[in-house]
């Protein structure tokens, strides 16, 4: 059984428990051990790109360092956490001034200057488990179901830091959908923004963006949309005005593996 340090992030403990619960039961069934560090902190939700921002990057460095100390790769499942942690890892590995300021502040026993391998849960399915192996373990396939993958922005961009997939023509979630027996639906808005946190500031803009995403998926014949991001799920469900169902990809994974009922008991 391969062990990973697992970073759930703030929202998976509260409003996105389904994303977390189904990720954990499915990992166990796939032979992956997830170990949550004792003292993780919220990643802050968005990476601050400014060179003169240090404090806003510290919580991500702390969890990267926890994984380093545990001598395991780090695994994330929320798109936002993943984006923040990957961008932090990218910058601290390359920007000596940032690394020096961060380490002056943290005072770790050994400075952290990058090196932790960070996987999104989807990358773990693709690169560690393998979609072929996943397919063999499916007991409830989504045969004939037309499923639209919603990437949004945070899983893919900036591509040089995230390095998960082609940012304009991604395939990882479609390959996941095929592995669980479904039929992926390709649509134009799958890698465009849902509106994100602008729902706090300008509801009309969030409605416009999420409405465009759901309209695009429905036009191409989707029966449901799947995402890895709690804020995408919120915008697509609450702000889009669409009746198309939206689920976390982990919920479909658990259902395909025959674990959904058991994890709800």
């Amino acid at each position: 059984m391969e062990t990973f340090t697992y970073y759930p992030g703030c929202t998976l403990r509260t409003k996105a428990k389904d994303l977390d619960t189904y990720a954990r039961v499915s990992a166990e069934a796939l032979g992956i051990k997830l170990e949550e560090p004792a003292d993780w902190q919220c990643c802050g939700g968005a990476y601050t790109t400014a060179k003169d921002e240090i404090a806003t990057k510290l919580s991500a460095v702390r969890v990267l360092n926890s994984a380093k100390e545990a001598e395991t790769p780090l695994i994330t499942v929320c798109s936002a956490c993943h984006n923040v942690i990957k961008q932090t890892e990218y910058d601290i590995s390359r920007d000596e001034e940032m690394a020096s300021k961060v380490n002056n502040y943290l005072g770790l026993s050994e400075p952290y200057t990058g090196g932790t391998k960070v996987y999104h849960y989807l990358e773990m399915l693709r690169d560690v488990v393998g979609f072929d192996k996943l397919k063999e373990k499916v007991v409830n396939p989504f045969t004939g179901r037309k499923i639209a993958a919603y990437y949004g922005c945070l899983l893919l961009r900036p591509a040089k830091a995230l390095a998960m997939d082609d940012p304009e023509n991604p395939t990882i979630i479609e390959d996941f959908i095929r592995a669980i027996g479904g039929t992926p639906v390709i649509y134009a808005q799958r890698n465009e923004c849902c509106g994100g946190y602008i729902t706090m500031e300008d509801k009309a803009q969030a409605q416009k963006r999420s409405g465009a995403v759901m309209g695009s998926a429905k036009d191409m014949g989707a029966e449901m949309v799947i995402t890895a991001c709690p804020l995408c799920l919120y915008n697509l469900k609450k702000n889009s005005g669409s009746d198309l169902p939206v689920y976390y990809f982990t919920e479909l994974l658990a259902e395909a593996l025959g674990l959904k009922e058991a994890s709800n008991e």
Partner: protein
Amino acid sequence: MNKNLKEQVLRSGGVNVLKCMRCGKCSGTCPSYGEMEYHPHQFVYMVEKGDIETLMKSESIYKCLTCFACVDRCPRGVEPAKVVEAVRLAAVRQQGNNHLEPSEIPALLDEDLPQQAIVTAMRKYAK
């Protein structure tokens, strides 16, 4: 023109605005284009010219979704979102200039709103 402000924004943004060839692809792909008074390509140009206080006073700095579409689609690697972020930080770092205060948050909540939205908004709109 405030030279110190321009230097501060360029240093904070960490990008070379002189690489911009004014193709407008960043603004063409921006999901907030319709909501912005000044668009991503204008941020790049106005920062280059040192016309930054105009941007700091505009609501446009609060409309960027940080989706990085302009960053990945710029054919010159200018990374306009980083320029927008640097200008917004120059604005919200001023005393009394938070765009969102913690006391305003309870009225914005509903039972499904994820914590992620709140922490992200605070990171973007306040210091």
